[in-house]
């Protein structure tokens, strides 16, 4: 069965851009109840126009029920208040999930003293909160870093678990792209001098706390637009209900106010109105759970709109260093001879590439592992930018043996200078390795005063991370193009791009090229996302619509981006995009559901309202509801309960699979549009069966 075989790999590969479901336990509802009741305060309610109308309606029916008590009036009143409380509950539960995290962060926020340095190298002890931007402080092993800053002197290992949750210590050192430290983290070893970059109360930790608590949450552009639409729908329904009374009077049967209020509350989009704020908070929360701090809500939405992902090759697409994968001997030379020479030349080479040559020689060709101090007669020739090669000179019985390893042109030149003639097969091997995206290193030797000769070529290869191709395929289905940015030449870039499955690449890229690419994409109407960590990434991070800065990066990069990834995992950008999309989809789906619900509510309430006047309208009572009172109450109860039923969906987000827009629209319309039409017919009927058992209904 093809469907089954297709399904298996999906579950095996941790599905890339699929969003994990956040946990939701019914107990949370109960725990959030007191907070939900506190939110009945009208000053809170007025911020949400749809729910405010319900609040006013509930107040009105309360007055009416007190004036003319009846079971019907009180039942409607109680359920209208319940509708408001359920809406508050949704928001409280969403907020509650961030509270625990905020508390643990607060513990890390330092109140410790800081050792401020003066120009004359004297120290003074000041409270951490008194620090100002530009101050220099000294931090030593065991101490907590008092505020955000950049290391200007020294190197230290830092425990950042308070912020990132990752217990393995990280290295922070002055200069370079790993210089930023976060207030509240602890130095484990050594001593550093930090220049403070954040004012008290505005540190990264402070921002994180307000972010997870939801207190800093501002409505995002789409949310504002949706709120506007919901408010105008509410107005339309208000109008329809208000004008219904004169028509009813004209027809000869005025309606009780309580019935009109019930009709109004059922029609206005309470479901989405109640859940909108919870959806927004939960969306942010999903990012936080993945250790991504979105510094603006706008960025989360923008993530859903991204058309182009710019991915740095190194660290994102490849493992970050090239590795030797084979040796290609030239002429009469055997592979073992070549491997031996390559190993010798690399013994003192501490770069990852150099070490990988030694590893290859040992693993593939069974060479005994040598250490460079085991060759007392050897003199190592270090790599320089001028010679572009490194090597070793060894005294042997037959005289001096010089081995050189390096860029093809440099080593070939060395061979010619020393009387040799590189054979044609070396050039061919070099070209074929380059064409495949690898980096060729030519190895040559000169024994005594004889002519130098090229021994062969080492094939260095970028190792592409596994599982990326599938992720890029998913992105492509979502309509997102991936562009790999690399400093490599075009040939190498093309080969790696093809292997990783990205759509495009930018080769020999300088920081300004990256910037130009972003601007060009934006000019063509596309939204661009990128990750970066270095100071020279900062302008591009600021220019991109979504810029995710790595937490290990510089303060400049973290300032410029609109998100910070605490795990410093560039591939996470893909998840961020998925979360952004899921947020928008959840809003759209619940809006559609909410509006589609109204059809059934009309069919429940309108025949009930005018049953006495026009008995023929009972033919619209498709659900066969037992009595007019029961019909109205059942619609109101359904309207309230559906909010509670959908809280888990609002918090988790609707199920999201990366696929094309057409398929996604079709699927979601079917579930939330058609489902929204049908569900209340069933729900109201079931509630009616229960309500009709009550006396008086």
């Amino acid at each position: 069965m093809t469907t089954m075989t297709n399904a298996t790999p999906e579950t095996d590969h941790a599905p890339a851009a699929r969003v994990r479901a956040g946990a939701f336990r019914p107990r949370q509802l109960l725990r959030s109840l007191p907070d939900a009741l506190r939110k009945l305060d009208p000053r809170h309610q007025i911020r949400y126009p749809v729910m405010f109308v319900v609040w006013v309606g509930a107040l009105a029916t309360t007055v009416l029920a007190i004036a003319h008590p009846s079971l019907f009036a009180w039942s409607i009143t109680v359920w209208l208040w319940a509708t408001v409380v359920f809406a508050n509950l949704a928001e409280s539960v969403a907020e509650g999930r961030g509270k625990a995290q905020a508390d643990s962060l607060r513990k890390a926020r330092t109140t410790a003293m800081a050792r401020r340095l003066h120009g004359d190298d004297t120290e003074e002890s000041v409270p951490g909160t008194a620090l100002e931007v530009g101050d220099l402080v000294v931090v030593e092993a065991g101490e907590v870093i008092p505020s955000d800053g950049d290391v200007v002197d020294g190197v230290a290992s830092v425990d950042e678990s308070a912020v990132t949750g990752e217990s393995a210590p990280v290295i922070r050192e002055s200069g370079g792209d790993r210089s930023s430290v976060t207030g509240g983290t602890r130095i484990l070893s050594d001593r550093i001098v930090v220049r403070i970059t954040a004012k008290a109360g505005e540190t990264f930790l402070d921002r994180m706390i307000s972010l997870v608590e939801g207190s800093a949450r501002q409505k995002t552009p789409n949310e504002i637009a949706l709120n506007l639409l919901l408010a105008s729908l509410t107005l339309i329904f208000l109008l329809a209900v208000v004008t219904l009374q004169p028509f009813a009077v004209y027809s000869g049967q005025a309606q009780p106010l309580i019935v009109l209020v019930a009709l109004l509350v059922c029609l206005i989009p309470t479901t989405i109105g109640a859940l909108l704020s919870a959806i927004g908070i939960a969306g942010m929360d999903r990012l936080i759970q993945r250790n991504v701090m979105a510094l603006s809500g706008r960025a989360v939405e923008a993530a859903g709109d991204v058309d182009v992902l710019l991915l740095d090759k190194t660290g994102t697409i490849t493992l970050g260093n090239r590795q030797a994968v084979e040796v290609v001997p030239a002429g009469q030379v055997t592979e073992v001879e070549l491997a031996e020479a390559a190993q010798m030349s690399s013994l003192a080479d501490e770069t990852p590439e150099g070490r990988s040559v030694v590893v290859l020689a040992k693993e593939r060709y069974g060479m005994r592992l040598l250490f460079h101090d085991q060759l007392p007669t050897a003199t190592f020739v270090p790599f320089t930018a001028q010679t572009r090669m490194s090597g070793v000179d060894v005294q042997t019985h037959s005289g001096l043996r010089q081995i050189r390893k390096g860029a093809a042109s440099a080593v070939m030149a060395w061979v010619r200078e020393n009387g040799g003639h590189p054979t044609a097969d070396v050039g061919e091997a070099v070209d074929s390795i380059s064409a495949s995206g690898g980096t060729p290193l030519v190895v040559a030797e000169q024994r005594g005063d004889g002519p130098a000769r090229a021994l062969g070529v080492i094939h260095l290869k970028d190792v592409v991370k596994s599982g990326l191709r599938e992720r890029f395929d998913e992105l492509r289905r979502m309509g997102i193009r991936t562009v790999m940015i690399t400093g490599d030449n075009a040939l190498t870039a093309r080969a790696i791009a093809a292997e990783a499955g990205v759509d495009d690449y930018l080769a020999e890229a300088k920081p300004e090229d990256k910037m130009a690419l972003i601007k060009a994409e934006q000019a063509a109407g596309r939204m661009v996302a990128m990750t970066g960590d270095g100071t020279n990434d900062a302008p591009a991070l600021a220019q991109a619509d979504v810029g995710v800065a790595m937490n290990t990066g510089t303060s400049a990069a973290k300032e410029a981006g609109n998100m910070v990834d605490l795990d410093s995992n560039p591939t996470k950008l893909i998840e961020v995009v998925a979360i952004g999309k899921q947020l928008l989809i959840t809003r759209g789906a619940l809006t559609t559901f909410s509006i589609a619900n109204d059809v059934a509510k009309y069919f429940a309430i309108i025949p009930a309202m005018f049953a006495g006047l026009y008995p023929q309208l009972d033919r619209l009572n498709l659900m066969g509801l037992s009595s007019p009172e029961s019909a109205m109450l059942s619609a109101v109860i359904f309207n309230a309960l559906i909010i509670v039923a959908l809280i888990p969906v609002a918090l988790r987000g609707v199920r999201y699979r990366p696929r094309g827009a057409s398929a996604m629209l079709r699927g979601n319309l079917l579930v939330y549009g058609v489902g929204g039409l049908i569900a209340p017919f069933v729900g109201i009927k079931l509630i009616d069966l229960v309500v009709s058992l009550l006396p008086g209904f």
Partner: protein
Amino acid sequence: MPVALAAVLQVGFLVLLLAAVHVPLGNYMAGVYSGKRHLRAERAVYRIGGIDPDSDQHWSVYARSLLAFSAVSILVLYLLLRLQAYLPLSLGMTGLAPDGAWNTAVSFVTNTNWQWYSGESTMGHLAQMGGLAVQNFLSAAVGIAVAIALVRGFARQGTDRIGNFWVDLVRGTVRILLPIAFLAAIVLVIGGAVQNFDGAREVTTITGEPQSIVGGPIASQEAIKNLGTNGGGFFNANSAHPFENPTAWTNLVEIFLLLVIPFSLPRTFGRMVGNHRQGTAIVSVMATLWLAAVTITTWAEMRGFGTVPGAAGGAMEGKELRFGPAASALFGASTTGTSTGSVNSFHDSYTGLGGGVTLLNMMLGEVAPGGVGAGLYGMLVMAVLAVFLAGLMVGRTPEYLGKKIGRKQVTLVALYILTMPTLLLAGAAITAASPALVDASVQESGPHGLTEILYAYASTVNNNGSAFAGFGANTPYQNTALGLAMLFGRFVPIALVLALAGSLASQRKVSETTGTLPTHGPVFVGLLGFVVLIVAGLTFFPALALAPLSEALL
């Protein structure tokens, strides 16, 4: 031939004809509004008006030009009607009273053609030709101009200019409406419609009684009445009158005329935005809604619930024998679907269901296919709404034709969608709430009477102009209130649409990817049709339940 087969063939023929014509006509109209050349006659107009035809306008200037032009038009027409007695070709008719003149002036300038009066006993030839017919051309050209301005909003990018109102007005009149109306008038004359300059002629009929028979420039007015989706008849009986609409085949010609521009404009839209599939999607929604309305009305009228209709083979009250129920229902569904409002039968006498469909057709906001221009811009606004509602469900900020639907666009669309129901429901509710107003105007009691009130306000707010005959509109209150309904129902949405056009034109286009919500194809067509129906349905269901629905379910 069985009647049912005849009905199907008639609709089928019309559909084929429209399908054939809408492509060349739509392309031609796109060319008219995109071209750089000016005709000599147009140049003369621009010179007289002091207009620079090559300069584009900011949306607010476009809107101001349009509103100023319409205000002057209302004033001129008002004076012409008031002073009729002192002007030539009055045929001895007196000037109109202030409330009546106001109502009629607004009615014709807003493309509504709501008529509280009988044309043959109120209007002289100058008022008919120099006043009403002129506005039949100009108000139609204004409608198309607004639609074109909105289309430019989608087609252009990074500009604050949406075209030149005066150029659009002149070109629409000179290059589209005049030539087609001219041809159509000749066809109608061939079909037997009257065209002369006679006044009333006294004749003695075969029973020996004297009768006054009115002639006049009828065929020429008939052509633009339908082509421009105006609807104001030369005679009170409108297209039911044999001088306006003599035979079954002129009837079909008239239906074709009132549908042809609204059904062709989506093609113009597709061409101007450079993607014909977008136009096809819009026209598909319009055609589906129109066909559904035609089918239900025809079925209701031919089925003719009740004893008498059963015996007559259909609900024949208020219908002409030469047309029969099917051709009447086709006309009725088309004229209310296009905001034309001309009638060949009396909607008041339709069955509860058939009459209800004509009412609902207007309550949809006149988008199936709607008035000239108004239908397209109305449907595009609904498309923006549909895109916003469903667009979120594909996980992106909603965008239509590469333009993002953000806060500003949603605000304008929301106000547009609020305007019509507010005016309609408030207007109808005020009349229904006042026993004095009910006594003065409403003939029937019970659901039918309520339908009459709702119909009057639905017809005027949506600039349709047809009437549910039982409603006596000629009272100072109704003349004034319905005049206001027409005025605001026309120009508030137009101002909002132009603002929307401006906000769209200034945006840069977002590129389309497989992640973009596709706005063509069956899923979107179904969605848009559903949004149109549900917006109107949710707004008007309570009112409809008390009026035509209660009647239809009896």
